[in-house]
């Protein structure tokens, strides 16, 4: 306790010197990261203050975990201790919406839904629909390179980001990229930080290219007779030249949500074509619009992210989708696990929610990993209790790039203070 008070006082005096200052206080149960109460919680009020906190932590060899909306704090290997929990929540402004350029610069602590509410004033949006959009922050979404169903059209954050300002582990601020949509000057550090899980630096602001809001949207809700049809429907749509913005599956039982956004005539026409495709295969369909459509998408997200248990991300090639689901079904039954799946049928990105004995879940994860050749997919555990995470590596094999990733980590964070041990590959 004396040490914590000392730490806190030292940190507070450091931050007090900064222009916009920061709040620093001892951590409480409510601040727990993966069940571990941080010694200090710092909520910097300015980019300078973020940098000052990091500079101080670096000088004193104190570990720092960054928190935005707190929706991903349980990701990664189990935590032993957290010295400083750095909250970005006070840095939540949409700094610039250059609507004539279709770009925006947003502070890391801004919540995705708030950002999109602001951008809607000019009928534009940041085309990300990552889970927990009402709470998840831009910084967290970028740090995790997280995305949602409409990744099918717009890509993940790494495809949308055009610039970043960051605070380095040593407390120095730097930038990469800029505010223009096309730019190859210098190394693209914004992409490097995207998906780095807070282990290379702290994102201060991110600049994105935006998308115009679609004039109309329709979603086809399809009920299929068997999971094998997912891949057929996805391939059939694309073969017909359809331009869906989301091609989602959910299972069991096998259902799909197929979204079409464009001018009204196209959204309606393509939805009808998709409905016909499903009906021809013996499935049932409902075409949804407006409030019904929004509700269907909320239910879809909640199916995995609104429930308890383990969440894992399973990536395979689209051509391996059917075989993978069959194997998953068989393995889950054999291990007495409950397993629900949603995901991007057009891309081969699936999210699993597992419930059952930790040892059985670990067997299932190992079994899936064992069947995926290098470069053709992966299984990453996103959220799980400590028991499962101690039984199985959450990241799985990272490949022969791992030693180089360690070198990058060492250069960016030589003292190893940022999210230590929890980054991809255990960085």
């Amino acid at each position, binding site marked *: 306790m004396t040490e914590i008070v000392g730490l806190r006082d030292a940190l507070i005096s450091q931050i007090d010197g900064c222009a916009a200052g920061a709040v620093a206080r001892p951590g409480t149960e409510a601040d727990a990261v993966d069940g571990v109460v941080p010694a200090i919680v710092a909520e910097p009020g300015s980019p300078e203050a973020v940098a000052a906190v990091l500079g101080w932590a670096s000088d004193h060899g104190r570990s720092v975990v960054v928190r935005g909306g707190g929706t991903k704090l349980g990701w990664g290997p189990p935590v032993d201790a957290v010295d400083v929990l750095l909250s970005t929540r006070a840095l939540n402004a949409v700094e610039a919406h250059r609507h004539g350029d279709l770009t925006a610069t947003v502070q890391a602590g801004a919540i995705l839904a708030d950002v999109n509410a602001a951008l809607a004033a000019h009928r534009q949006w940041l085309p990300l629909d990552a889970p927990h959009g009402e709470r998840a922050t831009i910084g967290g979404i970028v740090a995790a390179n997280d995305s949602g169903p409409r990744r099918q059209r717009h890509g993940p954050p790494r495809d949308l980001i055009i610039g970043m300002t960051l605070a380095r582990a040593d407390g120095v601020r730097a930038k990469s990229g800029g505010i223009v949509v096309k730019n190859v*000057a210098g190394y693209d550090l914004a992409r490097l930080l995207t998906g780095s899980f807070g282990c290379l630096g702290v994102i201060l602001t991110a600049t994105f290219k935006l998308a115009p809001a679609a004039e109309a949207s329709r979603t086809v809700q399809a009920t299929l007779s068997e999971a094998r049809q997912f891949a057929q429907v996805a391939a059939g749509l694309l073969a017909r030249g359809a331009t869906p913005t989301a091609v989602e599956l959910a299972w069991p039982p096998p259902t799909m949500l197929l979204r079409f956004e464009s001018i009204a005539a196209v959204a309606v*026409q393509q939805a009808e074509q998709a409905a016909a495709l499903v009906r021809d295969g013996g499935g049932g369909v409902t075409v949804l619009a407006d409030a019904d459509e929004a509700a269907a998408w909320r239910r879809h997200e909640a199916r995995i992210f609104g429930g308890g248990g383990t969440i894992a991300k399973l990536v395979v090639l689209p051509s391996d989708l059917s075989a993978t689901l069959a194997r998953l079904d068989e393995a889950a039954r054999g291990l007495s696990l409950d397993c629900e799946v949603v995901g991007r049928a057009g891309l081969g990105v699936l999210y699993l929610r597992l419930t059952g004995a930790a040892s059985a879940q670990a067997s299932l994860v190992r079994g899936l990993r064992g069947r995926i050749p290098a*470069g053709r997919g992966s299984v990453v555990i996103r959220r799980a209790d400590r028991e499962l995470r101690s039984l199985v590596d959450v990241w799985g094999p*990272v490949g022969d*790039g791992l030693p180089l990733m360690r070198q990058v980590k060492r250069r960016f964070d030589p003292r190893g203070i940022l999210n230590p041990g929890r980054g991809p590959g255990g960085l």
Partner: protein
Amino acid sequence: MPVDAQFLAELGRIVGPDHLVRDEGELSTYESDGLVSHRSRPRAAVLPETAGQVQAVVRLCRRVGVPFVARGQGTGLSAGALPHPDGVLIVMTRMNRVLDIDIPNQRITVEPGIMNLEVTRRVAPDGYYYAPDPSSQVICSIGGNVAENSGGAHCLKYGFTVHHVVGVEAILPDGEMIHLGGAAVDSPGLDLLGVLVGSEGTLAVVTKVTLRLLRRPESVRTLLAAFDSTDAAGNAVSDVIAAGIIPAAIEMMDRTTIRAAEAAVSPGFPAAEAVLIVELDGPQPEVAARFEQIEAICDRNQGWGVQVARDEAQRGRIWRGRKAAFAAMGRVAPSYYVQDGVIPRSKLPEVLRRIRDLERRSGLTIGNVFHAGDGNLHPLVCYDDAVEGQAELAEEVATEILSYCLDAGGSLTGEHGIGADKACHMPKMFDEADLATMRFLRRAFDPAELCNPDKLLPTPRLCGEVPGPYRAHPVEAAGVAERM
């Protein structure tokens, strides 16, 4: 340690004596890339046929401490493949095979020496194509595209090389082979692939690339409209973006470049102050509706002489005119300097006015041909080598235009890269902390600094001890970002 007879003999053993170039005359072929104002002859060039040979060459260089530079077709425009005078040039053109085509997953795996357009040719029968289409796509290689993160006319809608490379095999500067990404869309780990693409050959030598293929859109429509001023054309571009339309491409050419294109390939462009080429693709009804909107926008901005491509031949003719513009400048000027800068697309009219003032003041003709939809300018500064001092003046004028781009909040380069050409300009856009952070990355990959040294980042050897003064980036000046 220098390149000596023993070193050369070892190189010859690795790639075979027929694929080691050490003759001074033959080496002169490789002394520049597409930016011929920068020249430097390597000590030797090798043309490996396998990744194993590349690896052995890199290992040898590393062991002896010899710098090495990888080169594809040498079409780059920033001296990114400029050889090191004490080093080895690794020419990748023999590694040009297609290794795998996977249509169900929309992937193709190729060696880096393959031509960009060849990738599309190989999958066209299945109804697919490779989206990034730099103007040099007939002769530029995928390896060079990966190094430069190449764009092209259609990157407005479809993105750059980085959006289409899903995996690579590469030889690190210490000779280790690594695999980043793969055929699947995501791989766990840091996104080193995302930063390797566009690293201008300074981080590794890529030996295999897996690319994403796109299905040919259902319909494509191409329109050309003439304008009485570049302002009017620029306003039309802004109006298109503001209307929430993202065409596949919006290109602008001005009077000088229209004349050059006419002289070279006779595309039948109107004699106007500016033309816009707008291409839409996607589902037929969407394209039709958007096309009407675009015609109305051109009309509202006093566009005239509208030509709509009625078939693939007419579309091809319009694009031939556009893509020939650089090379065609030779028809209207003895020499020209191609600049590559980026501005926010809403600033087009303002920056074009500044360029016109500069044209008047300098007395040099400045042609403009550019990717207007994404604000990527390619001013062509014309000069005559025979007139003393004009080449230097042209370079000064081109540099002045870059400062206009930075003033407007833009970038030093949109697609040609920094290379050796603009490395000393980097401090105009990035401060010492930014550059030091980029050096973290470089040193993680290449602690011995042997892989394409003196490119991308300013070095004392290249720029003198004191790099140019730092000026606040307009993003910072506007209070969008601050620094300590």
